């Protein structure tokens, strides 16, 4: 059994059945408050919607979001499936991790792939990051939403990630085309969420809205949540491209002239499609070391993701078109 499988198995055992033992885990005051807020949000959605789903992207934010869902309904299982939008260009370890988790926890994970576009040869290096994201991510997400008729979808976005997210509600209304109208958001008062929608409309729900990147890491540490090993430093083959360290995760990545993969000690702060996700050089091989590194970090998280750099305000534009 691989170490991923072992970790995930031990994790799943924590949620199997009503243990009746006294509480043994401590949680820092601010994380306890954030956790309770998120659990409250997740339960509201489960209670008020007919076809909720949790968008699960395998990253650390998704790991925390799923953990919160497991806690919210313990000792029962979360009463909704997980949905992964797979561009087929994810890191191999991510897929191994995803499948192990679904199996051990006994949860349904639905995987959406835009097979049509893959067959036409859409990929990040020829199509460019914008088109790649639009077709393999945004379009696939929309078709998953339509096919399964989800009326509510949890996403792991945080308000500290990006400027337009800083302004988004926790319950974010989407019209029947999945579009977001930033100028006409519903007021959101107290902890009282309006969950009413018409047929065909949906709500995106962001239970991690008020968490920061540091909160996420601290929570993973204090709660012992398994994450994809790529977050920890290891020797990996990378090439330097446009100032970013790109990992050669499989042999599909076409190497440009003069590029030879080099083994470097790197880790990832965020995980997406491997050709679009920059690694950072680091020796942090444990969660503790990651957090220490974070405490002195000077570069914000999403800069490791190429899609945000295309133009100012790019995220808002993507969201209006239905990007998560």
């Amino acid at each position: 059994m691989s170490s991923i499988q072992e970790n995930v198995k031990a994790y799943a055992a924590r949620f199997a059945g009503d243990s009746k033992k006294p509480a043994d885990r401590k949680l820092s005051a601010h994380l306890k408050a954030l956790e309770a807020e998120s659990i409250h949000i997740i339960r509201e959605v489960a209670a008020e919607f007919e076809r909720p789903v949790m968008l699960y992207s395998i990253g650390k934010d998704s790991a925390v979001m799923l953990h919160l869902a497991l806690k919210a309904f313990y000792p029962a299982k979360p009463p909704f499936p997980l949905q992964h939008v797979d561009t087929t260009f994810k890191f191999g370890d991510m897929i191994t991790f995803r499948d192990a988790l679904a199996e051990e926890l006994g949860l349904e994970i639905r995987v959406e792939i835009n097979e049509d576009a893959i067959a036409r040869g859409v990929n990040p290096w020829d199509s460019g990051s914008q088109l790649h994201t639009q077709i393999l991510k945004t379009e696939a997400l929309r078709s998953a939403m339509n096919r399964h008729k989800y009326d509510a979808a949890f996403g792991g976005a945080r308000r500290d990630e990006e400027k337009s997210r800083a302004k988004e509600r926790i319950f974010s209304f989407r019209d029947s085309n999945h579009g977001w109208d930033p100028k006409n958001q519903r007021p959101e008062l107290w902890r009282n969420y309006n969950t009413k929608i018409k047929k065909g409309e949906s709500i995106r729900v962001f239970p991690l809205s008020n968490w920061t990147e540091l909160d996420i890491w601290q929570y993973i540490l204090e709660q012992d949540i398994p994450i994809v090993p790529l977050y920890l430093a290891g020797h990996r083959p990378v090439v330097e491209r446009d100032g970013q360290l790109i990992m050669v995760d499989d042999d599909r990545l076409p190497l440009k002239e003069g590029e030879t993969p080099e083994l470097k000690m790197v880790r990832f702060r965020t995980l997406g499609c491997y050709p679009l996700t920059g690694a950072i050089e680091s020796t942090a091989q444990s969660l503790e070391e990651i957090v220490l590194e974070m405490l002195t970090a000077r570069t914000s998280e999403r800069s490791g993701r190429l899609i945000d750099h295309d133009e100012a305000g790019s995220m808002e534009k993507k969201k209006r078109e239905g990007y998560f």
Partner: protein
Amino acid sequence: MNIQAKRDEVIERLTHSGGRGVLRFLTCGSVDDGKSTLIGRLLYDSKLLFEDQLNVLERDSRKHGTAGDEIDFALLLDGLEAEREQGITIDVAYRFFATEKRKFVVADTPGHEQYTRNMATGASTADVAVILIDARKGVLVQTLRHTYIARMMGIRHIVLAVNKMDLADNSRGRFHEIVAEYLKSADALGFESITPIPMSARFGDNVTCRSEAMSWHTGPTLLEYLEDLDLDTELRSEPFRMPVQWVNRPNLNFRGYSGMIVSGKVSVGDAIVVAQSGLAANVSRIVTADGDLETATAGDAVTLVLNQEIDISRGDVLASAEQRPEVSDQFAAEILWMANDDLLPGRSYLLKIGTATTPATITTLKHRVDINTYEKQPSRKLEMNGIGFCNVSTARPIAFDPFREVRDTGSFILIDRFTNQTVGGGMIEFGLRRASNIHTQAMDVSKERRSQIKGQKPTLLWFTGLSGAGKSTVANIVERKLAEAGLHTYSLDGDNVRHGLNRDLGFTDGDRVENIRRIGEVGKLFVDAGLLVTCSFISPFRSERRMVRELVDDGEFVEVFVDTPLDVCMQRDVKGLYKKAQAGEIKNFTGLDSPYEEPEAPEIRLDTSKLSAEEAADQVISHLRERGRLG
């Protein structure tokens, strides 16, 4: 160093920042008072800006900035494209920073009156409001408005940030003058504390560092104040309340009630009651995925297991047996209206309080508040951003506390039943009477008995359509045919209602709503009497027709849409009303200067341009026969 020791060290370092939990505060002020500059300054000084964010900031400062060659902190915050271009702030933005003592969530809210609802959104989850004043301008109407909204949404602490002191010679006299002026109005609102601080956001004076230029200021800097404010003690002494969100029942051996404790605390063994039903039990376990707890307090999301099975579902409030919330279907509340369409007394909205949702109407609008002067004014409606004191009536009794005592069980939102928009926010002041559900006198003769005798199923046939569509004509034939068949009927229409019961009502939107409400109630009584009732009223609004539908039982309401196009009605113009309306002699005429909202899913649609009145009536009768309503 072994792993455990390293982990302890890291957690120690992390909780060091955040040991006091999170403080949520709101900043508000009118445009250009320096709100964005202030928050940008807090982020900058607490070294929370990352390198790449700084680069973008410098680039944007050159492009759109207003601070000359210096960094324009305001650009850090205006997230939406339109806002960046127009330099305005239309929605709340949330920002995060931390110091060694505490973590902070800042809600940066817009100042314009038209965005009041966005400010209310930010205020509703904040513990403190930082109200900015430009020292040169002093207290403005906006200042008082923002203060009022802060208090209304439940904020108990105010910081009066008198900004741009550098442009007012850092004058102590000017500062005191502004503070005195402010307190004249704000004192009456009953805040727990008001803390004035003179500052200059642009240069950082008294934001995070003490000001040399204003050494006369002996109070705290803004950051010192925010770091030291003690909130914990406030929550704990309140009575235990937990609205049930979810009944957790994975198997026959486990039944738990999940929710967030919104007030007070609960321990294993405590006696609790279901507020609405009065059923009692004791807490036998407090379950979390990390293990069972002995005690849980306000702000915890838990699952309670009780020592006996009692009927509990989502929407119920679990409460301390000694200090119970009120339970009533009538109460007085302050309401902030947030929709383009006016609030209309009598119209049915959905009211969501805690985890319970129920239809509700505003029965009376007692007065409105001029939010700029705090004056009470009589009014019959409430427009966007208006604030009014109202009596509210709900379809089912709800459990609540006065808002001033418990924020979560004292507040509700109102949702429009057709657009689904959040149209109002309400703060409950006090209950008006005990719930009447227990006192309904049981009658020996029931609706079923009455209709059995008549050999029919009571039905409310609701004819809606434009003036001149043919509602009364068709209804009249229907009633005649039913009577000929030996069935028991009654009919309500404009003539027999407008002249008596509703003599006092005119044709404004508000009066139309009340008109239909009363007719609905009368129709309900006739249905209770076991009759087949025809009602012919234009009834232009979907919400009111829906309200009537909900007054009677399933299947008893039959909506008949007499679908005649406007031009046909105008051509017919039997009573000459369209002519008069076009000549301006009648105001608010449906179809002309007052809207008609077509039914979306009527039970029957009559196309009178294709059918004769006789044929239309037959269509109605066969519908009734098919549904088994005619015995």
